[in-house]
């Protein structure tokens, strides 16, 4: 027969100071874990939301990042004639030649300056990414104008509409803020290809070309034909896949967070064990009485284990609540693939919180197993005689 759980609950309430202190300790451990998972989840969401399923990023063979790649305009002209390309409303082929460069601007997090990607593109490129203008207007052809992503506007005091940003051969006016959904494009600065290309002496080459296939069936064919065309010397990669590969930029921080959570959990387990041993010691007489009433050693073991799990569960829930406010906070992380910052929002997901609760329960099991074992092993007579 099992001992009612209400018995454990009441016991936790009676020793409320100890319960709270132990649970808060476990809660802080869980909060670190949940926050770490929220970072990874946020980064993953941002990269998952980046890229269109029918689009390919075309780079020079052997390049794994747009920044290292060069594609000649000659190759672009050949590529543009490809029949499997989708066309927009103006009947133009959906192929956007783009040049990437980097600027260094002071951000809220690092006043010394962080690198940002500047993407020089045509109007077709803007259209292919489905970005919308949020504030101000798009850059105009023939003007030294740029627009910034919404995450950039949020975190870089110098990249605001109306301000001037210095790179290349002079100054550029920020004329608008764009919203590219949840994608990592929100962390970029966009401007016109001809204008920016001229500043960097890149009139006959671009970094990469973004193309869209007419439909899913022709996507593979388009990819193969681009990869096999020796005149081009390029490699086409699905846009989704290209961005998903960059999710690993968060790995150092992720591993660091996990390590911290695990070390903290060891400390919390010891603390929980201490609390449970004290609970067993204080209730020796009760344990004896329960045994006299006919509860088995197994029930006693289970009861104390449940009590420890309840204690950990309170901690776990508290930890999740503690981590919840970071949901939606925008942060940035450097990518060694682009040598610039990727902006994303923390996301406290249900699965992250579940992982936190499970983590807390593991701490509870480790902390409760030995004390519960010692409670179950107590001999009835000695237990009753203890004060």
């Amino acid at each position: 027969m099992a001992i009612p759980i209400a018995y454990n609950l009441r016991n936790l309430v009676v020793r409320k100071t100890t319960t709270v202190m132990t649970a808060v300790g476990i809660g802080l451990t869980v909060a670190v874990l949940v926050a770490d998972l929220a970072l990874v989840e946020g980064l993953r969401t941002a990269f998952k939301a980046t890229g269109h399923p029918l689009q390919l990023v075309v780079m020079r063979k052997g390049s794994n990042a747009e920044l290292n790649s060069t594609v000649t305009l000659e190759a672009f002209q050949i590529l543009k004639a490809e029949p499997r390309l989708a066309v927009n409303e103006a009947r133009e082929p959906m192929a956007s030649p783009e040049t990437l460069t980097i600027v260094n601007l002071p951000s809220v997090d690092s006043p010394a300056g962080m690198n940002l990607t500047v993407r020089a593109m045509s109007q077709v490129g803007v259209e292919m990414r489905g970005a919308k203008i949020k504030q101000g207007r798009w850059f105009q052809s023939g003007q030294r104008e740029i627009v910034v992503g919404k995450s950039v506007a949020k975190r870089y005091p110098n990249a605001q509409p109306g301000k001037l940003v210095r790179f290349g051969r002079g100054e550029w006016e920020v004329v608008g803020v764009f919203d590219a959904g949840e994608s990592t494009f929100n962390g970029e600065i966009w401007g016109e290809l001809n204008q920016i290309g001229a500043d960097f002496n890149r009139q006959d080459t671009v970094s990469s070309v973004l193309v869209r296939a007419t439909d899913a069936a022709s996507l593979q064919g388009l990819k193969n034909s681009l990869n096999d065309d020796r005149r081009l010397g390029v490699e086409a990669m699905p846009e989704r896949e290209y961005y998903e590969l960059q999710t690993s930029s968060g790995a150092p921080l992720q591993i660091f967070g996990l390590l911290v959570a695990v070390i903290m959990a060891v400390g919390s387990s010891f603390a929980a064990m201490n609390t449970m041993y004290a609970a067993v010691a204080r209730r020796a007489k009760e344990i004896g009485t329960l045994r006299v009433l006919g509860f088995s050693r197994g029930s006693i073991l289970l009861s104390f284990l449940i009590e420890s799990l309840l204690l950990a569960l309170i901690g776990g829930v508290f930890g999740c609540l503690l981590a919840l406010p970071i949901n939606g906070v925008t942060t940035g992380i450097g990518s060694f693939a682009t040598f610039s910052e990727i902006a994303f929002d923390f996301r406290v997901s249900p699965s992250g919180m579940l992982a936190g609760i499970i983590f807390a329960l593991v701490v509870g099991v480790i902390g409760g197993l030995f004390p519960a074992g010692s409670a179950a092993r107590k001999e009835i007579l000695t237990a009753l005689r203890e004060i």
Partner: protein
Amino acid sequence: MNVINCLPLITKNSFRNRRRSALTIGSLMVSLCLLVLLMAMYKVLFYGGEQTPAQAVRILMRHKVSLAQPLPLAYEGKIRQVPGVKAVSLRQWFGGTYRDARDTRNFFPRFGARPRDLFIAYPEYEIPEEQKQAFERERTGCVASKHLAEKFGWQPGERITLVGDIFPITLELKLVGIFDEPNKFDILFFNWDYLRDSLKAAGTFDLDFTSQYLVLADSPDNVSRVVKTIDDMFDNSPFPTKTESELAFVLSFVGFLGNLKLFLLAIGGAVTFTILLVSANTLSMSVRERIREVGVLKTLGFTPGTIFGILLGEGAMIAIIGGALGCAMAQGFCVMLRNAPIPIQQLKAMNVTPLIFAISLLIALLVGLISAMVPAAGAARRPILDSLRHTG
């Protein structure tokens, strides 16, 4: 009776419940170890490790906007004329892949450098004289740090193929020397001329630029002046520069890891708070069990002040032991890190410095005292009769 005379009593009381003391010390040890590691990491990442005399005069110069943008070779002559500059060398980042890029173990920094002045720029690299000469002689020669060579089991004569990505060429290198790098960094240098010739042969472009210049100042005092002179000189050119000491250069990469400063501070705060809770919990449990005993002590003539002191002392003792063990454990981790294959090489310089040791013991002491405050005050204030009557 004063508290110091009660030291044997404090020691005895601290360990009367051995299991509880062990668990508490264990918990404090693990948490403080983490706190010490966080402090050591903070120091290395935001203030840098110990600077060697060679590092103190070494200056790195790159394009103001980013490492990916080049600087013209013509700058070298101009830099040489800056007063306070002793020597100038250069290195060109060559990304590329070695074996399989998907395995991060195959990544290590590789640079094109000039064999004749590489070891002038890096006097701390120790290399046998004949290997150094072989590097100057052989066009396709390369040299690797000892730690890197050991990682891959390379011996001199090893063929190393690097497939370029920034540069559309493949380099077929031969390892001609292994140098001792004091920080155990992974790094490889090959002949800059070979890179230039290969690019010419491939008909792509002439390598008339470099990604970084290495400038040596004649004394550490001149570094900041040299840095400023160089940056001012090129500020209005099409290739503005960012010049900084090697230490500052290394630290500038920390921003890439995200807002680590806030992370470290937040986690450090959480850990400290956890320690406080664990310690307070233990002490209040221990005091609760001894209410009668405290009453007996009072009848024997112990003043409330002494009893307060004894209980604070117990808290401090347990916390200090936990703190000292935590520091020892953290130092063990630091030693392990030195030989571990970690991507952020700066972390190899992590160390429990005397200052960090002192700070963590102080934190432990404060935690012990603060956590004992409430239960100790309660026990000290409780009337004798009340205490003696207490059961439980």
